[in-house]
């Protein structure tokens, strides 16, 4: 049953706005991870706007960790939308005297942990979830990870430990865009795929959906049993919404020039319709 407050059409419009916002910012500062932000945008937005309990006391509300720290622009857009950070923060990203960096930095409003080196977020979440259990707090911890990140051994240590410690309040959202710095993830280590069975074998409840479809993401997370920690694999497209960026590795880090920017702005208007 859909949360009446989470309107899927509004989510689409919001994500289009976020894509425009990230493109605009990319014209102000050079290095912004546009493509990896575009791939996780619906996962981050659905977590915050649809799934997370953010009401009231920070001690009881849900927690969000962007374990794929390089998707920070997506997170910053959502935090800006929620009024947690002022618009001037993102407009001055990576500039001296301003708090936002390419990767989330603990202590900045809305940032629950410093991330950027892959493979750290899930273990942090396990520690947080264990403490919550001890403190009798039934809040959830959302962790957005990249598919390349799942190549880190530390992720599998956390996947191994969480169910054995009776952790149920972690919801890991994997941004399966099938790309890492040097090429396609599924071609780098082909025997690693499919991923879902491996996650289940470690004791997690797992599902796979279209990671750009807010309703699918929302329904899958809402439909979890709650008996185990949950991992949702979201199939996504790196650079989603801009044809020349989609699945082209150089856009992991590159910013569009003025001409490319114009094309991109036009194209994201038609994204995810």
């Amino acid at each position: 049953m859909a949360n009446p407050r989470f309107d899927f059409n509004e989510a689409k419009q919001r994500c289009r706005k976020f894509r425009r916002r990230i493109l605009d910012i990319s014209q102000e500062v050079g290095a912004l991870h546009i493509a990896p932000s575009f791939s996780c945008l619906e996962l981050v937005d659905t977590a915050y706007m649809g799934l997370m309990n953010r009401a009231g006391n920070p001690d009881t509300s849900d927690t969000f960790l962007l374990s794929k720290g390089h998707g920070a622009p997506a997170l910053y857009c959502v935090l800006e939308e929620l009024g947690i950070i002022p618009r001037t923060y993102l407009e001055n990203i990576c500039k001296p005297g301003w708090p936002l960096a390419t990767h989330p930095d603990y202590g900045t409003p809305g940032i629950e942990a410093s991330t950027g080196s892959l493979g750290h977020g899930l273990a942090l979440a396990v520690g947080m979830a264990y403490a919550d259990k001890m403190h009798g707090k039934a809040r959830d911890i959302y962790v957005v990870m990249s598919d390349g990140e799942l190549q880190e051994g530390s992720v599998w240590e956390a996947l191994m430990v969480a169910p054995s410690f009776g952790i149920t309040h972690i919801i890991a959202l994997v941004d399966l865009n099938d790309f890492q710095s040097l090429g396609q993830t599924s071609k780098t280590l082909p025997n690693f795929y499919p991923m879902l069975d491996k996650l289940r074998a470690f004791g997690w409840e797992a599902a796979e959906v279209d990671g750009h479809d807010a309703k699918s993401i929302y329904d899958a997370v809402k439909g979890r049993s709650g008996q185990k920690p949950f991992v949702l694999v979201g199939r996504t497209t790196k650079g989603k919404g801009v044809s020349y960026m989609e699945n082209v590795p150089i856009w992991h880090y590159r910013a569009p020039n003025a001409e490319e920017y114009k094309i991109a702005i036009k194209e994201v208007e038609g994204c995810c319709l």
Partner: protein
Amino acid sequence: MRNSFANAFHDLAKNDRRIYLVVADITAAAGVASFQKESPERFLNVGVAEQMMIGMCAGLALRGCIPFAYTIATFTIYRPFEQVRVDCCYQNLPVKLVGVGGGVNYSTLGSTHHASEDVAIMSVLPNMTVLAPCDPAETAVVTKACVEKVPGPVYLRLGKAGEPDLTSKADPFEFGKLRFIKPGNDVCLLSYGPLTKMAFDVAERIEAKTGKSVAIVSVHSLKPLDEIGVAQILARFPVVAVIEEHAPYGGLGPRVKAIACDTGARCAVRAYALKDEFLHTYGSHADLLKAHGLDPDRISGELIQLLATRK
């Protein structure tokens, strides 16, 4: 030392429910067993998964807990180094990292189990405090200081078992300050950890052969280092020597020499450390120290000669 840590930890954790012990398949002595029995929910064994151990500790700390991570020193800090740096130090969290068997204490296990560069590696991390008590009694007070005196991350370097008491006649313990554990006027030996016992062996030889008196100082806090205390010693004693179970780079010896240089000290300064080598020799802890050149006869001989030239 392990026992002393375990008992002190038990005392702390009994009265403070924020305290957890997270281990990676290695645990301490009886005190921990009592804690484990009384509070099984705060004793967490993640298995042989040290990155997880540190990451989980940081997660607990982000929720207001004070976790101790405990295993053999190499596995506490080398294997999960990036979790130590990013999760604990970058975020400045109260995670207490306990390394058992610092230096070459696990003498027969080979260099895979030797943490002979640990002080250097931990000292370079911003926000990190590095502590190395010299005997069981000092271990107890330093363990408590990890919680009561240090709000951020700590690396606590411990020996193993069976260390002698060295501090029963010492000056009172003051956290972060150099501590005279034996008085003297002519030579001052600075040491930390279980190797401090060797300073007594060196002092005994020098005193017997020269009639001079040798002071011994336990440097339980390597970071922050009591630099004023070191400068005072350099100004007061004609001969100052550091004896440390650590690689020759990045430990206490180079720090003391730097302070001597900065303060224009006129005394003679010597530093005795492990060799810059992975030795492939085995035997007792003492055998290994000797193979590294940490030998009371050699050190006392050199310092006696040095004293003669200072007349």
